[in-house]
């Protein structure tokens, strides 16, 4: 973690966040490996609903129906899929960047933005394995 010096003299942890989107064309199973407690949301337009229980640290196999899912984590994440699994996985590092910048708009427009003014200080790494 990178300490962030605040004006009043105290330090706060850095804003660390990796947002991952999964576009699932057909029902599939994905193995998600995370290092913290992670909430998986199923996104539909401007609403989202929690999909299952919180994922604990470690590897969890998740059965996904067709749709769009997002999760955010404070650590590196790994998504493992079968070779022909119709799931597109995207690290949405630009979704919080309100200053613009390159972003895969056709995908990102369907994803929620944050209610803050800047990108994370540190974006953990996403690894996708097939």
């Amino acid at each position, binding site marked *: 973690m990178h300490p962030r010096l*605040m004006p009043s003299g105290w330090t706060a942890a850095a804003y660390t966040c990796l947002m991952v989107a999964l576009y699932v064309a057909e029902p599939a199973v994905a193995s998600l490996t995370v290092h913290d407690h992670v909430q998986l949301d199923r996104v539909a337009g401007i609403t989202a609903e929690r999909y299952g229980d919180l994922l604990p640290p470690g590897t969890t196999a998740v059965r996904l129906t067709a749709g769009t899912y997002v999760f955010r984590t404070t650590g590196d994440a790994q998504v493992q899929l079968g070779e022909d699994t119709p799931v597109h996985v995207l690290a949405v590092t630009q979704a919080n960047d*309100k200053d613009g910048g390159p972003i895969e708009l056709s995908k990102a427009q369907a994803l929620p933005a944050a209610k803050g*003014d800047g990108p994370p200080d540190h974006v953990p790494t996403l690894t996708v394995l097939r």
Partner: protein
Amino acid sequence: MTSVTGPRSAAVHIGADDLRHPRHAAWARPLSCRDTVERLSRLCQAAGVRTQQALLGPDATTGRIRAAIAAAAAGIGPGGLLIVTFSGHSERPVPGEHDGGWCLHDAVLRHVETAALLAAAPASARVVVIADTCYAAACAAVFTGVPATTVVLAACAENQATLNYQHSEFITKLERLTYHGGRPNPDCRSYTWLRRELRKDTPDVERPDVRANHPAAMRQRPFRPAPRR
């Protein structure tokens, strides 16, 4: 419904979902503001708060918000209760520049300004701030200097972001834990309890928090004015 007599209570609800400042105008419109204001108005009514003001969209200007908070803080009197709620975008603290703030229709209301406005409340009063936004707990560090006992209910930590959905999970959970269906939850006896329940079953990347400028305030029953002496 709980009736509050004696000390005055007031609430100011801010739903800043129409941002016109050049820096903010291109940002995604906050989606949950109206729902959050509606839910928190209902919560405050159930808590016995008689005087409520909601400033939404183009009405959520820095001028009108400053005036509303200042008037409410000055008007509650000794032992009174002031609830200020904010839903919308926030700017993160920038070291050496500012401590962060809430993005309003025309500009940012810095937390240090809000603290100065809240300082008009008598020291014997109670202030509750509900921040449904990114970096929500950042204001708590600034509000430590408010003379009145001040409790901040934050949707997330100062280094965390909340996502822009139509409904705020933090707010719906807060309503359910405190005044579900307009009836007080008998289990909700302290801010310590409320903090624990709000944080239960939440992801590490976005965890609500409850912070007070005096440790003893965490033992208070949420949304109640100071007892009469």
